[in-house]
């Protein structure tokens, strides 16, 4: 056994733990592989460490995944780009393991290394590696090879290029669906490296094979490639080759394929240009919007705005808008919900007149939808429609919807609407808010559910930020402070929390004059939970108010609390006192904990 000098001890441990029985230690060592490499030096890394890793590849997946990732950035540690090829063997074996995420990471790392390698090295070592994997006995190797062609191809000499295209074509017809799926997935990025003449012939024939595959899962991925491939072709070629395929796919027997088309169609439109879009793709899209399968309609509805953006307004009004109308009363709530989340974006596309005439009724009916998700999705995008039609038209229908959501019996729905209140406030303006929403905001502070009270406290703060301290002094603070006398201690705690959030926004003066007295008063509460939360709030106020106020008001109060019979109160009071002594920045009060469940 070697004698190891003391400074080397940790690195020696690190190296030994590459083979420790504990996976956590092995993982740790692998993550520090660069440190090990630097300790060994470039030459020994090349000659010993890398071969060592190549041989020890039967480890757990987590370790292999980490190894695949580390090796991707290992070029500097083996002596630079001219030695990059020594990294290929271990990654090649990792490309053949059966765990997908390890293979994917190994492919990613190989691509990263290959992108930096010198052309000659690519030809001499990278391309043979791709060919070996593509001819692998097990499907795992062949699956991985598909992702490497895009790196191998550009630097290959002409003859080799032909061969690589032929190999890829083979992979597209492999016996194993897994390999064909991988070939379909990578076809787009491989095609991007291929010269135009071959693109039209070789790649298109591979694409055709994949689009006619027996396995739905392969066709599905071929659809995904449509758009990418279409963008590489000239518009007329795209119209000739891709268009018929996608139109065909839009009527595929499998709803999953149609679902994919619905998701991708607008991208294809961009590739083929306006005329084929009008003549072929708009009808196809209309069919998808009226598909029998709800999942397809969901996907299509979700893309309605993106699709309309690339059409001219007349086409959109003439063809798409009628479908949108139908979808707004679709039997599936998820379809309506998907529509509600994007329909606002159509307003700028259609212009003011069409929006008021056609879109507004749809929009209002969605706002009255029986499912809260649908209403929420509309409200969340309110700013977009406001820009087009203005708030006056909206406010009448908006308010009932908001009030209803605010009182929904599912607390998650209430939570969601609270999140949007600041947005609504900014859109609707102070006047509207004062009349209608102010009371709601106060009501949430007394909600049965903690999360709602918590969100309501935050909401109060955000409103104060939005409209400024003066407005808050008039419209929020008095109401909030009133509630400190609520008989329920949990509600009093919410108010304390609100105060701690409001104080930084309101500034030192208001804090001293209005907020602080309330807090000090609360320190006389019967409930210990309130008292230690007072201590916490005071701690946070120390930062805001003047030193003199701290000395005169806060400290005496804290001193009193620090002699409280309750241990938690004493603890937090003394903690606050300490921070007032140190005068350094304490950590902000983050959680409003509920230590002992004392009754109110």
């Amino acid at each position, binding site marked *: 056994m070697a004698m190891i000098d003391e400074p080397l001890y940790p690195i020696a441990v690190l*190296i030994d733990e590459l083979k420790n029985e504990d996976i956590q230690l092995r993982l740790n060592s692998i993550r520090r592989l660069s440190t090990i490499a630097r*300790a060994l030096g470039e030459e020994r890394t090349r000659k010993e460490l890398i071969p060592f890793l190549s041989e020890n590849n039967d480890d757990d997946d987590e370790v292999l995944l980490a190894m695949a990732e580390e090796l991707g950035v290992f070029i500097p540690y083996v002596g630079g780009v001219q030695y990059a090829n020594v990294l290929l063997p271990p990654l090649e074996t990792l490309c053949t393991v059966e765990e997908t995420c390890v293979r994917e990471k190994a492919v990613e790392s190989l691509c990263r290394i290959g992108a930096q390698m010198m052309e000659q090295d690519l030809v001499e070592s990278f391309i043979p590696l791709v060919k070996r994997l593509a001819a692998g006995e097990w499907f795992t190797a062949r699956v991985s090879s598909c992702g490497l062609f895009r790196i191998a191809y550009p630097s290959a000499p002409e003859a080799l290029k032909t061969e690589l295209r032929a190999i890829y074509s083979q992979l597209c017809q492999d016996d194993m669906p897994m390999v064909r799926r991988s070939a379909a997935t990578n076809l787009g990025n491989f095609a991007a490296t291929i010269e135009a003449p071959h693109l039209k012939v070789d790649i298109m024939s591979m694409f055709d094979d994949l689009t006619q595959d027996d396995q739905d899962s392969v066709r599905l991925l071929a659809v995904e490639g449509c758009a990418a491939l279409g963008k590489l072709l000239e518009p007329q070629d795209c119209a000739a080759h891709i268009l018929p395929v996608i139109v065909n796919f839009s009527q595929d027997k*499998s709803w999953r394929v149609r679902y994919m088309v619905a998701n991708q169609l607008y991208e294809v439109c961009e590739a083929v240009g306006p005329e084929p879009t009008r003549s072929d793709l708009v009808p196809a899209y209309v069919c998808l919007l009226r598909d029998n399968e709800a999942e397809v309609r969901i996907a299509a509805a979700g893309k309605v705005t993106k699709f309309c953006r690339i059409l001219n307004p007349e086409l959109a009004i003439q063809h798409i808008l009628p479908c949108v109308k139908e979808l707004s009363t679709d039997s599936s709530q998820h379809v309506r919900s998907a529509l509600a989340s994007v329909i606002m974006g159509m307003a700028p596309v259609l212009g003011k007149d069409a929006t008021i005439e056609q879109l507004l009724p749809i929009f209002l009916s969605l706002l009255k939808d029986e499912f809260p998700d649908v209403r929420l999705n509309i409200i969340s995008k309110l700013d977009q429609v406001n820009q087009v039609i203005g708030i006056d038209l909206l406010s009448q229908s908006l308010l009932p919807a908001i009030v209803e959501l605010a009182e929904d019996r599912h607390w998650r729905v209430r939570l969601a609407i609270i999140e949007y209140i600041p947005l609504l406030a900014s859109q609707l303006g102070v006047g509207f808010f004062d009349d209608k929403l102010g009371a709601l905001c106060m009501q949430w502070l007394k909600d049965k559910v903690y999360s709602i009270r918590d969100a309501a406290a935050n909401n109060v703060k955000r409103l104060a930020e939005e409209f400024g301290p003066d407005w808050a002094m008039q419209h929020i603070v008095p109401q909030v402070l009133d509630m400190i006398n609520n008989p329920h201690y949990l509600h009093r705690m919410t108010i304390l929390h609100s105060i701690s959030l409001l104080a930084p926004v309101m500034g030192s003066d208001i804090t001293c004059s209005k907020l602080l007295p309330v807090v000090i008063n609360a320190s006389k509460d019967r409930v210990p939970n309130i008292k230690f939360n007072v201590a916490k709030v005071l701690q946070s106020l120390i930062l805001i108010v003047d030193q003199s106020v701290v000395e005169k008001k806060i400290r005496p109060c804290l001193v009193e609390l620090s002699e409280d019979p309750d241990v938690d109160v004493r603890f937090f009071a003394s903690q606050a006192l300490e921070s007032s002594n140190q005068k350094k920045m304490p950590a902000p009060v983050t959680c409003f904990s509920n230590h002992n469940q004392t009754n109110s």
Partner: protein
Amino acid sequence: MNGGDEVAAAPAGPPQSLDWKFSQVFGERTAGEEVQEVDIISAIEFDKTGDHLATGDRGGRVVLFERTDTKDHGVPRRDLERMEYPIGRHPEFRYKTEFQSHEPEFDYLKSLEIEEKINKIRWCQTANGALFLLSTNDKTIKFWKVQEKKVKKISDMNLDPSKAVGNGSIASSSTPKHCLANGGSPDRSYNYLGNDFSFPPGGLPSLRLPVVVTSQETNLVARCRRVYAHAHDYHINSVSNNSDGETFISADDLRINLWNLEISNQSFNIVDVKPANMEDLTEVITSAEFHPTHCNTLAYSSSKGSIRVIDLRQSALCDSHAKLFEEPEAPGSRSFFTEIIASISDIKFARDGRYILSRDYMTLKLWDINMDSGPVATFQVHEYLRPKLCDLYENDSIFDKFECCLSGDGLRVATGSYSNLFRVFGCAPGSTEATTLEASKNPMRRQVQTPSRPSRSLSSITRVVRRGAENPGVDANGNAFDFTTKLLHLAWHPTENSIACAAANSLYMYYA
């Protein structure tokens, strides 16, 4: 093993009856030996090549067997298959390994015990020489990888394990880590190294990598790769792989879920027969299987004796079936037991996907997927039990779930029965083959001497064959049927005429 004189297939006409011979038995009971409940086999499955066989038992174990007779020839398997390997050779298996797949559990939320019993095993695509399989109990499906690993020993560490550490070997994962002389922990030193320590350009020569010595010894290691849990409210009766190699289904009494093999935390419900009100429940799912080649087709059977084929392309939730196969009830024959004995206990697709074999309590039925008016053939398995249905109901035997299987060439079907008997029928047009075998070393002992002629007058036009000797309640040797020894599970080798069947804790293998 006995060499066996193979019966040459007749050049034309229906294939002749097979002459079944005993091949092997695993876990044979000695006389008077009590069978342990946990040892009773509850699932049997050959893999796609027929080189491996897996059994699951009530104790949650999975036992793997591997074929020994084809491995040593040096000829690639594919060639062997092509050249119709010479007669006289039949599949022979040896014990490979076993592992504990499921443990008994307790669902605290529902106060339910979850048995460890393996309900189904399905083989998945092999990769890198490792075997993969799915096993399921009532609630949880697990994905297993079984692989040979070379035994490796690590030697030559930087730190002498005995000297440097002083508290156990370096390879131990015990918590006291290597303590440095100055009391600092190595963890802290890592950081010190990373930030400040600069290594000399040539590296540190005194450091070395551990040397790993690989021995010739190999270890079979079974590792659970994924657990697909919490997706079934009722008991899982089936799992089945899709031909796309990436998805599978699991079926319980009321629902069928679709999974991706690589994603264990979500599944999609594709069939849901649960009525809004459970009091309206009249039918449950009893078995489900994917089509062997069409990735979008699957079939499931019900307790009312119907088989539904659904097309996954039609919609996300397949409430409506593409095809329905059921036999119209014969008029006037209805009794208390009609519905119980109509319940299908198992369905299997034939290898080409054209036919579906179903087993109900009394019969085996073969269905042509293109003909939904009725089965193309019906084989009587338990007709002689009809007078005894009352007794069978009393002792719950009527609810026994017998499995069925088809031969790889689709010419024969087989299913189990009581008294450790199983029956093999020829289903090729014109075949009259109907053999009864006993799961013992002498399978033909109870062979019924003359398989009765099928009653085929007009029925032959529609190829409806009703066949199967109307056995009396007493077999040829005068033994009464024994309802406690039932042969529920059996599997046909995918490429050869070889059957593996389970009689309690014993696995019997036969060939012809």
